[in-house]
């Protein structure tokens, strides 16, 4: 079950998977997919993680697109773990992405991991205005009605830590959607400095639950 958030006059569905669905505009937003992460680590001589995260993340996205029938998709940056990651991705995964993009208005917002254009279709932008919202990778403390990613926020409830959305009157920060992603506890000063006192943390998982943001 999603959590319905009323934000700047619009109803947004915060989904169990960590995606954001904006039904009125048939739009789905996801952040920090980090596709190709295991490939990047292996290439750099690090550990050899199981090479399945791209497949797992795309399966998740496929399900959400099917379920929401979204016509517009916004990837909020760090979609690829680095600019070379796309070359390392298997052909089947590349075709899969192409298939998901087919017939949809698709925007890749640049992130710090993927700071330039990627050799895939869709629109590439630093940020996207879709009234009343601005979508960008890293939150701008001066902005309002903003939806961003980057921080991978997480919070604990009943002894379990889960990726979460953070929301206050000005901004919404999305959790990381990619399967191989860690998180930053909402207590961290980077997040407490950004969010208002009365901010909420909305935890992902089979039941999406809102709590006061743990500080």
């Amino acid at each position, binding site marked *: 079950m999603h959590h319905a958030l009323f934000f700047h006059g619009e109803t947004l569905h915060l989904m169990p998977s960590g995606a954001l669905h904006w039904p009125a505009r048939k739009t789905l937003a996801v952040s920090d997919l980090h596709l190709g992460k295991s490939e990047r680590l292996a290439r750099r001589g690090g550990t*050899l993680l*199981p090479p399945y995260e791209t497949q797992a993340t795309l399966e998740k996205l496929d399900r959400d697109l099917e379920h929401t029938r979204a016509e517009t998709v916004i990837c909020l940056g760090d979609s690829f773990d680095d600019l070379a990651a796309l070359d390392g991705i298997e052909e089947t995964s590349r075709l899969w992405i192409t298939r998901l993009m087919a017939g949809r208005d698709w925007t890749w917002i640049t992130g710090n991991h993927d700071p330039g254009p990627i050799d895939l279709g869709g629109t590439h932008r630093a940020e996207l205005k879709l009234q009343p919202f601005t979508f960008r990778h890293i939150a701008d403390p001066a902005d309002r009605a903003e939806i961003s990613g980057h921080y991978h926020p997480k919070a604990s409830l009943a002894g379990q830590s889960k990726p979460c959305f953070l929301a206050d009157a000005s901004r919404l920060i999305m959790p990381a959607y990619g399967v191989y992603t860690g998180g930053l506890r909402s207590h961290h000063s980077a997040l407490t400095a950004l969010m208002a006192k009365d901010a909420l943390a909305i935890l992902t998982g089979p039941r999406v639950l809102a*709590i006061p943001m743990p500080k």
Partner: protein
Amino acid sequence: MTNLPPALADWFAAKGWALHPHQLDMLAKAQDPATLLIAPTGGGKTLAGFLPTLAELGPNPAPGLHTLYVSPLKALTADIRRNLGTPIEGAGLKIRVEDRTGDTSYTQRRRQRADPPHILLTTPESLALLLSYEDAPRIFQGIQRVIIDEIHALAESKRGDQLVLQIARLQSLNPGLRRIGLSATVENPPALARFLAPETTILEADPGPDPDISMLETEAPPPWSGGGGRYAIPAILNEVTRHQTTLIFHNTRAQAELFFHDLWLANTEDLPIGIHHGSLSREQRERVEHAMTAGALRAVVCTGSLDLGIDWGDVDLVIQVGAPKNVKRLVQRIGRANHRYNAPSKALLVPANRFEVVECQAALDAVHAHTLDGEPRGPGPRDVLCQHILATACSGPFDADQLYAEVTTAGPYAALTRPEFDACLDFTATGGYALKAYDRWQRLKQTHGNWHLRDPRAAALIRQNLGTIIDTENLKVRLRNHGAPLGEVEEGFAASLTPGDTFLIAGQIVRYESLREMTVEVSKTPGRDPKVAVFNGTKFATSTLLADRILEIFQQPSWPDLPAHTAQWLSLQREVSRLPDPHSLLLESFPHDGREHLVIYGFAGRNAQQTLGLLVTKQMEQQGLAPLGFVATDYATLTWGLDPVTDPAPLFSLETLRDGLESWLSGNAVMKRTFRDTAIISGLIERSHQGRRKSGRQATFSSDILYDTLKKYDPDHLLLQITREEALRGLIDFSRIEAMLARVGPNIDLKRLKRVTPLAAPLFFEPSRIPVQGEGRDRLAVSQAQALMEAAGLA
């Protein structure tokens, strides 16, 4: 026989020291390829190990490493260096002895590599590091002997498996290398001998007189359940005043803390008493150790952290609080009270509850009968082998055939097959994934037949992750406003705290204030009962030997050896129902408090009884009996639910239980925890270092994610195989369930009763009740979220 250098023999004579027979034997066996010395504490075991080396080095030895000494404890290496220095300097021998551990300075370690001492004292982890350097063959050139101290303790863990792999490596570098193992009393000397080397001479020193051991008699009988032993505090204090120095052992750190706190309140004479366990800060522990050595303490409340290590000179009494769970460990603990060789050690057992009275009696019988327990550990774990292969690659290219031959000379890996070895090699080289799509998945490459690191820079990372000790993710605890460090708690425990919660650490009650920069900040709150008291709850299961002996005791017609309160309790059980016996599985079923209860007297040890609880309630759920929860002890599992069990046989068929295990095991938290350890040891993921975690934005993510991913996309992966193996013989302990079912055969005896039985009654007081999984956790989260929102005025 190798003779001592005259100067050393003279020095011994001047001191009036005569060598013990086993010390002379060690000199006589100096040329044997491997010798295992089994001797009690206080018998000059360590000196016995070093005598052949001192004799061979003589007064003016040539430079170069002669002997490597490996101990499980860093503290022990420093202590041995001092102790060995006395005779060496006293006799004017020009022998250089140095230690090398994680605490040794960088410059010192560098110098040791360039110019090694004659005798190097180290730990398995530091040795692993040393062997991973490219210049290892040069450092270890000409080494004559390796001495493994406390080998009985090392042989029980992966540290020992890693160590014998390293010694196999050393042996390849120096075919003439001789090995010495020094051990406390063990149940199976030949097995330990095979662990040390393929051909080992066993020397058993005179074990000394039998210990003087009994059960502590108290005015108040022990309570029906619980593990604290706090009822016995007056009697224990009385014993402390009557002895010079007393060690008071507890089975868990939490119990030690609770006991120490209450002991302190009752200590009206202000006897100097300290506390020592593995969760205290190093400063705290060292302070207690120094006070102990200086003879300034009358008692120390401790845990397994004092099982090994320096002989505290004046300990004349050991008190074991709570059932010992394992006879071998009890005997080794008793040995700590051995202030004079050939004087009997004195020990008292304090059962923490009524059931433990029987277990303590069983343990006393076993000690008197000289029987020790021990379950064989099974073949060497393959995650350790993976790490060994990576470490070998760091030191230089290797040939797979040669490495395989070398590995199989190590006792735990003697039965390793070539395909098993090759699977480990493939894992270290490519990750070993079913999906072989990328040429970039290469850590090791094969060139001209030899395997080597694809990128030599990877060596630094591999070295950082060497070792098989996996620290739980601990957070430091300190007093608020940069106060004194008190110790550490597990991250999971810290996460369960909310500001205002109180808990015990270092003998004080503290109040949780906040979590800041990976440190738990607390303040002192005098005189309140701690709200949360449990942390780091390592729980040992009662050994099969003890469980069997308890069942034997139950068969006696009467119990003259047991305290009257316990004998009466057992008689009453015999009248009302019956006592469990070795040849059947007794089940009791009765209604109580509106719920139907079932007690399973499996006597399979805590972990297996817990697994049994999970599997049987799963099965009951399927039969529509609506189980609601269960609780497990070392002896029995109690379940409760809405409907009674009437046909128990299907619940306990081995096949059903195995199927349940199959479907339940993979999603279980125990598996994920086991996977994490295996993934770190085998080199799939890196250890998290405090520094790295502090950096804020986490590059690392939970190993649970990797576990779930592998399970879904690569279910036959090597690491999942290893994880299964480890979990089955570790926390899940299915082998004990199998052994129990084999013991009872088809005799499953269900007794239907009207009410709770005397033997079942204590189970109702057991604290760690486990709700049967279902919607429970979800509902808990929902109601908590609601409460939080309401409290914040947001609902």
